């Protein structure tokens, strides 16, 4: 009888934990998504059905899924754009105070109360807030319901920016400063060295940061709930309504499974595209 290799034994506890923590709940969710819902009753329906999935093909639900990904993609791109200079300065600034200050700011943003951050955004960027005129530069009037989209994006950016920046700090630290010095010795300006040497080398980390930010955005629930004014609806909000407000577990489960598959497809699809582009 063949014995399991040592590495397999080492993987076993983690694999079992993953199976129990992820596989189990997802399997239960999948089973629930195939059950019929009986309106007005707390008792589950009998038999199996695909109706909960068919309902999601209505244009409005495809729109909500698209909205979730659209806002997520915009925020993820803004996160990488905003985080890269911050992370670079936190690693390469000649002034220690700047490096320490930036790192403290990024970590501080992560540990600050989530609810406090979101309500602060509501007060500052809300339609009557002092920063609303800046929000209006997006072309959406602060008094229109659609302006909630701007607020949700800012709320999500608060979540993603420090995480992406800290990821990039690690990536920039791993790059030797000698590379920039070598470029400079060959006549490159500092900007040229950063754009043509540092950024291409940090690109895989930036793609990873983008994908992590996207995953954080599309699974976020609290920012659209508190800042969305009831009109920016993410698929997470739809799931919450089904589970918590109506008690329609089968429909909530169907949304959950669909989003899980869609998210895997988008994240792995984008990762594959990025790999091909970076080759």
């Amino acid at each position, binding site marked *: 009888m063949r014995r399991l290799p040592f590495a397999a034994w080492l993987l076993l506890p983690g694999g079992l934990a993953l199976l129990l923590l992820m596989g189990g709940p997802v399997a239960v969710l999948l089973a629930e998504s195939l059950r019929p819902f009986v309106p*007005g009753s*707390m008792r589950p329906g009998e038999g199996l059905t695909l109706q909960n999935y068919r309902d999601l093909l*209505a244009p409005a639900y495809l729109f909500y899924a698209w909205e979730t990904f659209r806002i997520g993609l915009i925020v993820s791109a803004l996160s990488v754009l905003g985080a890269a200079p911050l992370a670079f300065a936190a690693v390469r600034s000649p002034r220690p105070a700047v490096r320490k200050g930036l790192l403290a700011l990024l970590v501080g943003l992560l540990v600050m109360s989530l609810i406090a951050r979101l309500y602060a955004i509501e007060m500052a960027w809300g339609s009557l807030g002092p920063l609303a005129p800046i929000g209006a530069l997006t072309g959406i009037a602060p*008094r229109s319901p659609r302006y909630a989209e701007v607020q949700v994006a800012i709320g999500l950016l608060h979540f993603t920016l420090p995480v992406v920046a800290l990821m990039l700090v690690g990536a920039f630290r791993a790059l030797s400063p000698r590379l920039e010095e070598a470029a400079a010795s060959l006549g490159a300006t500092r900007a040229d060295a950063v754009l043509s040497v540092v950024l291409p080398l940090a690109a895989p980390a930036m793609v990873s940061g983008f994908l992590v930010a996207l995953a954080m955005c599309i699974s976020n629930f609290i920012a659209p709930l508190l800042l969305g004014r009831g*009109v920016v609806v993410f698929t997470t909000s739809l799931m919450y309504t089904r589970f918590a407000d109506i008690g329609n577990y089968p429909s909530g489960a169907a949304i959950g499974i669909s989003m899980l598959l869609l998210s895997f497809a988008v994240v792995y699809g984008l990762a594959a595209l990025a790999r091909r582009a970076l080759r």
Partner: protein
Amino acid sequence: MDRRQLLAAMAATAGSSAGPVFAQPRGEQLLVVMWGAQWIEVCRPIGEEWMRATGDRIQWELHAGGAMAVVGRLRPLWPRIQQNLIAAWDPVFDAMMEAGWMEPVDPAEMPALREIPDIFFKKNAQGQRMTVPLSTAGAFWGYRTDLVSGTPIESIEQLLEPRFRGKLCVPVPVNLSGLLMVSLAIQRGGNERNIEPGWQFLTELARRGNIGRVVANNSEMISAMSAGDLSVAFWNTGGWQAVRNRFPCRLLTRLTDNKGFLFNEGFAVMRGDNPARIAAAKRFANHFATAPINTRYNMPLGSGPTNVNSQAAESIRDIFYTPEELPRFAYIPDYSFMASQVDAWTRRWEQEITPLIRRA
């Protein structure tokens, strides 16, 4: 002394010396579900006094969203639930009764129930009382008079006017079990069973961009109506009372072409396998139903007390109706029917109304 005697003596000594250390605190541990905002503010001190007086330990849990949410949350856990008392209102009581989760209540063990008119109780098929009614509350249209200039609102048809663009604060259908839809339907000649006219009215409001915010709970409504960019809302008396405490408001309780909605709020005693705990839950609910506590509970909520010996707040006289006014201005819909429609109404809202609000 043999081994058994020695062990018994040791146990007795340990028991007597460790008694005060290991003694269970007297009273029962109760988990009570209550709404947030001013509901929990008024309940906490009442609960603390009760704990000091009885030794029972009250732990509060807040409703997340509308009270109906708790039903969805408890469904997969039933019967292994920790909650002993749940504050809810008519449609939620109907749903929990249908599921068989509630314990009957009886004046023999809860004497304060004798002081509550029989009409306020929800009863099961056997005629047993199933709820502890604490408040008569309502849901009404209203507006902040400091923010609405020009002609005062006398009909909700006026809400279609351009001056109300982005000014309306409305609940999602799952909140108040869809009373917003019923109100709009009544305006156009319908009711809860003929809801289509309500959807048409709602579609007009959304298409014109007059709906500025959709709220899902009391805190959101109070915060939205306090911010200053919204001026008109449809909400319950509790939320309105909190807004009225800070800003001048007019509640449209006596519209000639529409109705106000009345309902009862109170406690449901949850079934369980611990009779002592159920008895403690009933004692606590009975305490809330006594005249002094019923008065104290309802005053800050802006709702009417149910105990005939309680006093109603002066500030809510304009909200509630005299018996002669009731048929003219008030409407009590079929909440059980509405509870069965909430899923369909929510889906329709998501598919038709939210996209319109966003596009407007």
